[in-house]
């Protein structure tokens, strides 16, 4: 959503320096709370306009999306979104509550503090002639990236991993000249045997209160 944010260093992202500031307009007491990257997994009905309803909600409430991906699931008619945004705990709960208000949203889970697999996929086209090629391929091997296209003047690398790992590869490729790059954004899945229940019987309305920290 925000390419310039994608390139920020991981250090920054996790410390949360409060620079995007929309929370500062909210309750002063809460603005002081620690901001971090929150990852939501949302199951939604696969209907026209649903993605638009979700993104429109973030725009309407002045929440900034860091990354949003959407794709099919194991169940026909249900899509799964992974949404990453920087927020304090109270704002994250409000986001969750607001997502639940969308009629087509079935289930929202904030997996930020769950053991979770986070993956991002990237294709990176690097300038590389015959002389440079071995160096780039060597780097690719270190990062377990795959070479998926070669020309006399370029290489395309495919890499899957956490944002940190991909950013690391980008940083070392930069000096060779990156011609173009594309990233999917983060997808997430919690570890362990259980999946996220899509249609649970009872949902405890989790709301932010002063007891949260």
């Amino acid at each position, binding site marked *: 959503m925000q390419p310039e944010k994608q390139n920020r260093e991981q250090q920054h992202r996790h410390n949360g320096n409060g620079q995007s500031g929309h929370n500062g307009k*909210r*309750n*002063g*007491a*809460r603005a002081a709370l620690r901001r971090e990257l929150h990852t939501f997994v949302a199951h*939604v*009905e696969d209907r*026209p*306009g649903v993605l*638009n*309803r979700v993104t*429109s909600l973030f725009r*309407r409430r002045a929440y900034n999306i860091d990354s949003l991906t959407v794709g099919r699931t194991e169940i026909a008619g249900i899509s799964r979104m992974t949404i990453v945004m920087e927020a304090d705990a*109270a704002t994250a*709960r*409000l986001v969750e*509550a*607001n997502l*639940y*208000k*969308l*009629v*087509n*949203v*079935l289930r929202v889970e904030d997996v930020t503090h769950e053991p979770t697999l986070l993956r991002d996929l990237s294709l990176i086209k690097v300038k590389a002639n015959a002389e440079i090629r071995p160096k780039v391929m060597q780097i690719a091997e270190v990062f377990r990236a795959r070479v998926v296209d070669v020309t006399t003047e370029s290489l395309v690398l495919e890499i899957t991993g956490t944002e940190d790992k991909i950013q690391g590869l980008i940083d070392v490729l930069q000096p060779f000249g990156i011609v173009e790059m594309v990233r999917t954004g983060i997808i997430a899945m919690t570890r362990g045997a259980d999946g996220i229940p899509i*249609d649970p019987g*009872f*949902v*405890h*309305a*989790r*709301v*932010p*209160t*002063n*007891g949260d920290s």
Partner: protein
Amino acid sequence: MKRRGAQILWEALTREGVDTVFGYPGGAILPAYDAMLDYDIHHVLVRHEQGAAHMADGYARASGKVGVAIATSGPGATNLVTGIATAMLDSSPIVCITGQVPEAMIGKDAFQEVDVTGITQPITKHNYLVTRAEDIDRTVREAFYIARSGRPGPVLIDITKNAQQAEIDYQPDEAPIRLPGYRTDLAAVAEEYEHAIELIDRAERPVILAGQGVIHSVAGAEVLEFVEKSEMPVAMTLLGLGGFPASHPLNLGMMGMHGESWVNQAIQEADLLLSFGMRFDDRVTGKLAAYAPRARKIHIDIDPAEISKNVAVDVGLVGDLKQVLRQLIAAMAGRKRPGWLDYIDGLKGHAAVRDIQRLPDTGHLWAAHVIHDLWRLTGRDTIVVTDVGQHQMWEAQYYKHDAPRTLITSGGLGTMGFALPAAIGARFARPEAEIWVIAGDGGFQMTAAELSTCAQEGIKLNIAIINNGYLGMVRQWQEFFYQRRYAATPILSPDYLKLAQAHGLDGMVVSSRAEVPRAVEMARSSAATMVVDFRVEQEDSVYPMVPAGAELHEMIRRPEESALPSPVRQSKDRPDTPVRAPTSAIAETGRDEL
């Protein structure tokens, strides 16, 4: 059986109990209008689709039932937008049905094509685009269910012309509604109730903040029981007025920007606030950082997304207010709080009577006197529908509502032009009720064309125009915060007597307080809609007032009598009276305004 989509629409609406709709025909909705003639539906032809949405809204607010507005594609649909947003901000259950160009023409910028589901997405609770006749029945059922359940709100159904025209084999849909992502059963857990009870039993200086949720939840009896068992005073929001009787000794009155000073003072000094179905709007909190600094807060709301949205609370109890209160009443200890109540009584001092009594009866007419007299002369079940501005606040201050659904007003969106169409809607919901429209001369002119609707429908309303020759509330802000530079606020009115007569209605002009009772009596006894033009003082202001962004107890009070402007009517063009020295509270207000 064979049915066209348009017929299915009316059958589905009829099964939802709809017998009255407010609308305006046009090309893309023509099949629906044609089919309507064969069903037992009363259609009220509006003069502008905004009026249709407000009428559906007024109908809903007066009855608690879902109101229905209908319009054609393109401009018909976009004209609904203000009315839909009004219903959204005030959680009013309406269903809007719009025609859409045939499916094959969507995206082609066809004549009168507009992406109305896109336009209304942020101002509806949910909306639908229906392109097949097969989907109409189910969609109507879902729309009504969504509109009236949980936190109510507007739902829009956009139906393409081909879907209205297609003929299909049709059996009414009897299956239960299945909306797996729409949950009205989100609820708090036991520990949250325990925490709330602990705070309630411990509080020494509690204040209940009662909002429209009391009315939506039909929780008046539970609120009364809670209040009397706990002896807690109640402050009202604008939309909550009527939800708890104004005449009850524990009802403090309205809170917020134009609330009573002692109410705001009590909130600021409270050690516990209990929010009953209200959402801490900026008009009731003032400066958030300084809001009720010593109070623990319990927020009861059916919408989880309201909890801690504006004010961080200690306990959020999600659920239907009526059910939540029943649980709390059963569990709480109950106690007396004479010290706190006496203290609040002391805060009232002479403020309780100061504002209206300080308005001298000099033979001239003050708006507050008109509204106060209107309240004295009308009954408990009279429905008052107000517009937006000074008169709206005076109404909230001086008309004491004792019953729910007796005040219908645009709170959240503050939509000028709301009153007349909303009152027409209320009339169809409550055919027997006495209904008064109170509107300013500015707002009334925004939708005055609906007088013609009154005439065509032959309905009876009493219309009080509080006519001060200004867009009064804006003028008041200019007086307080813009050095009295009256940019674009003087407004000329037509001759309302003649305007009424031109529509075949009755009219009257009143310019002194002595004439008010007789005018009210004449309006009530007239068989036709009566327009009463109350020519009130031009430069009066609504007091007390918390300037936007100020702390809740920092109220501008009505100047002492000596400082009042001389009650001489000024000409309608630019007034040339000298600038009054601002009160100290005003002078200090160098704040960002909202």
